């Protein structure tokens, strides 16, 4: 029969789910330990939530799943959540903005159309957002939190790359483009086309030199940024203050022994970011990213709340995550009925329930199949005097038992 799965969608099979839950568990545990609280936003949001801030690029918005709901006669379109941060920002504004600080995290799916149908159109993210925390300690907090999750997942070769959206935007201002041109250039950069920037010669050779060294060089410590600052004393005030912020964060990371790479052009898609941007790479693939987005909440409700956050991409991480050996072999018990008589079925259910009550996972079977995946098999024959036979698959031995109490006793001996 033909595969009936919708194009671009994915099934998560039992093994995938074991990996998924592992990522989720590690992520949740870390977040809770750092004082973050879990939230969940709805799958449907209004489209205008994503257009209203003017921060998402037209090319990103043209890929959202938008449609008219059953009560959409007013023309108000809804979307399948295309992004994790904006809905959480909305949740914060709607419900929690009275709180000075809010540390929130979520595990969610996001939807974006992808033309070939070969990549996922539904993707899973583990994200954390920190509302109300001004720079620079919160920036460092989210970077370290993300790093801890990655380390605890056993991904040892992850690289951290840093960039700064404020710095890029200040740089763009130096070109003195018309608002329309500047918007176009921003869109190109957001889509990763940094060459557009190097090709666009400014009127000022100083700026060209600055761009060449920023895009051409890659720093490994805050010293790189200090060098940039010293080489371009005439840079604009905006540029200098962004650079200052970048230096502060880099210095903190240096002091905390967190290694990184400064690569201004490595990061794209930082649509709403205003400050530090970062991403994690493992085996050449992007497994997560985040940054500071101080103007998002103000654009949404005019309240001046700074914020930063990150998301880890569960789908990418799942691909490389080693699967822990299933525990079923060590503790699983199969309760097998020899025949399908009402009496035997009833006894099987009773045995399984007692086993579960005693803390043992117990599965039922009435097919009589030969099973080797279980630590124990309890055969219910229904015949006196010993109506149960226990088979121990590890020790390869059999034992008779006359009562459920005796079964539990045998199991507790092990």
């Amino acid at each position, binding site marked *: 029969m033909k595969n009936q799965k919708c194009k671009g969608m994915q099934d998560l099979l039992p093994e995938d789910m074991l990996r998924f839950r592992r990522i989720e568990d590690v992520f949740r545990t870390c977040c809770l330990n750092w004082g973050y609280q879990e939230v969940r936003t709805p799958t449907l949001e209004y489209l205008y939530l994503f257009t209203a801030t003017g921060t998402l690029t037209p090319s990103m918005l043209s890929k959202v799943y938008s449609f008219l709901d059953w009560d959409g006669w007013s023309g*108000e379109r809804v979307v399948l959540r295309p992004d994790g941060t904006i809905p959480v920002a909305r949740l914060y504004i709607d419900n929690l903005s009275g709180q000075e600080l809010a540390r929130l995290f979520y595990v969610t799916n996001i939807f974006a159309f992808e033309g070939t149908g070969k990549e996922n159109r539904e993707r899973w993210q583990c994200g954390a957002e920190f509302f109300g925390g001004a720079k620079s300690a919160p920036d460092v907090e989210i970077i370290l939190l993300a790093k801890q999750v990655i380390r605890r997942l056993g991904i040892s070769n992850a690289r951290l790359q840093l960039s700064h959206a404020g710095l890029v935007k200040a740089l763009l201002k130096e070109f003195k483009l018309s608002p329309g041109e500047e918007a176009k250039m921003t869109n190109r950069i957001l889509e990763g086309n940094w060459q557009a920037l190097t090709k666009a010669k400014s009127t000022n050779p100083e700026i060209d030199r600055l761009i060449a060294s920023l895009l051409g060089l890659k720093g490994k410590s805050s010293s790189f940024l200090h060098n940039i600052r010293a080489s371009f004393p005439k840079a604009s005030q905006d540029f200098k203050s962004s650079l200052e912020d970048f230096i502060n964060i880099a210095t903190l990371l240096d002091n905390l022994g967190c290694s990184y790479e400064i690569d201004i052009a490595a990061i794209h898609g930082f649509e709403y970011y205003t400050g530090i941007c970062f991403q994690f790479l493992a085996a050449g693939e992007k497994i997560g990213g985040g940054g500071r987005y101080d103007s998002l909440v103000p654009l949404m409700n005019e309240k001046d709340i700074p914020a930063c956050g990150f998301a880890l991409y569960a789908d990418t991480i799942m691909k490389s995550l080693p699967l822990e050996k299933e525990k079923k072999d060590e503790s699983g018990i199969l309760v097998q009925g020899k025949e399908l008589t009402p009496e035997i079925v009833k006894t099987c259910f009773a045995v399984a329930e007692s086993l579960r009550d005693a803390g043992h996972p117990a599965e039922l079977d009435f097919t009589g199949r030969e099973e080797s995946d279980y630590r124990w098999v309890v055969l219910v024959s229904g015949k006196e005097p010993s109506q149960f036979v226990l088979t121990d698959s590890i020790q390869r031995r059999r034992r008779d038992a006359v009562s459920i109490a005796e079964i539990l006793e045998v199991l507790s001996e092990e």
Partner: protein
Amino acid sequence: MKDYQAGYIKLALPKGRFLSPTANLLAEIDLGFEGYRDKTRQYRLRSTRYPSLSAKIFQERDIPIQVAVGNYDLGICGLDWIEEFLVKYPAGALVKVASLNYGEGSIYVVASTQVGITSLNELSARRNDYRIVSEYPNLAEAFALNLRMRRFRIFPVWGDAEAYPPENADLAVLWGKSGARIAAIQDLIPLKKLLPVTAFLIANRESLENKDLSQILMCFDSKLTAEPQISIENELDSSEELKGPRPSWQAKEINLALPDGHQQAPTSQFLKRAGLVLHGYSEEASSRRPTADLDWLGIKVVRPQDMPLQVANGNFDLAITGEDWLREHLYRFPSSPVKKLFALHFSTVRIVAAVSQEMPVADIDELRSLVQSSPDYIGAPVKVASEYINVADKYLRDNHINPYKLIPTWGAGEAFLPEDADMLIDNVQTGKTFQQHKLKIIDVLFRSSACLIASKDSLASSSKKERMEFLTQELRAGLL
């Protein structure tokens, strides 16, 4: 029954505005389609010169879809409908081969003077909720997103987009002969020219990649030109004319929408019987905004298809439309605040399900059995063409026809059967057209006549209630 042999080439040709120039072109390059001319009753044509070439005549808007799905290898239609399709389905199977060098006018984004916008930059900077009305909803949405408009709502209409601003829309995306012509329409400012409307030769990607179309393409060769520059410049060729004083539109307490097209004559007679004196709603003198002797009543003439949505949105309090279009709207938006007040018993049609006379089924139950027992006969999914996609969707669901695929059409749906669709859900008056096209009716979904619809919100509004009741009573008097 179906022509799937390799080497057989199918061409989709336009009705309407491009029929004459396209017919001239085809005559010039001698494709052998003598039957393709104005007022033709024929939909299917066979080339007298190339035995492997056949053609079918479609509403222009249907052509990009028909070519993209591969029912036709080649097609000719306006760039506006091609882009309307491509902007939504860029990865689709539609390829623009070349411009055919004829066409007229352009698609413009226009603003109502009442909105007070004179440039595009203002649109993206402001936080207003803009209502954009258009026959081209995909182009309108892409325009709004590209401009990073903060908040907007798109109202798709079947036609008459220029009639909506200023009171019922802030912006419109519509066809105009020139910017100056648009500016000459009361209260409209052209903001941007989106694209010129020229005829294009289009092809199905797979046909172009795998099938030998060279003989036919060579015929077109002498007529093909490179793609004309699509202007994305902000062309305001009429800015001088905008400065003069304009008659400004006046808000009325109660707004009534009346239909144009076939329904206009019987509606006009009905209103006369009801004793409502109108100026500008007769065959002799027809205006977009007729006037009545009641100074609190605003009247506008729009497409009946668009009325329920417009009433739902409070643009009109009352409207005369068809029950078919009301159902189409309510099936899509069950919570819509639109209500039927009473039927007017004219323009009565039956909404029916029809199949080709060759199909061995007499009713919908037999069709279902046929689909289940011999899926190969029809070739699942069942393809259903209809102007009423929501009515059709509900009907097919209710009757457990499974699987099915809906093909939205913009009129002349009878031409789709049997080769491009298996079933048609359409309105019939006499059934004569169906006879001509060898179709048989297998079910009557419902009967539909003109009806008066109202906004529930207006009926409940304390400021409108009295006048709504007065007008409704007046209209009731016109019933036979």
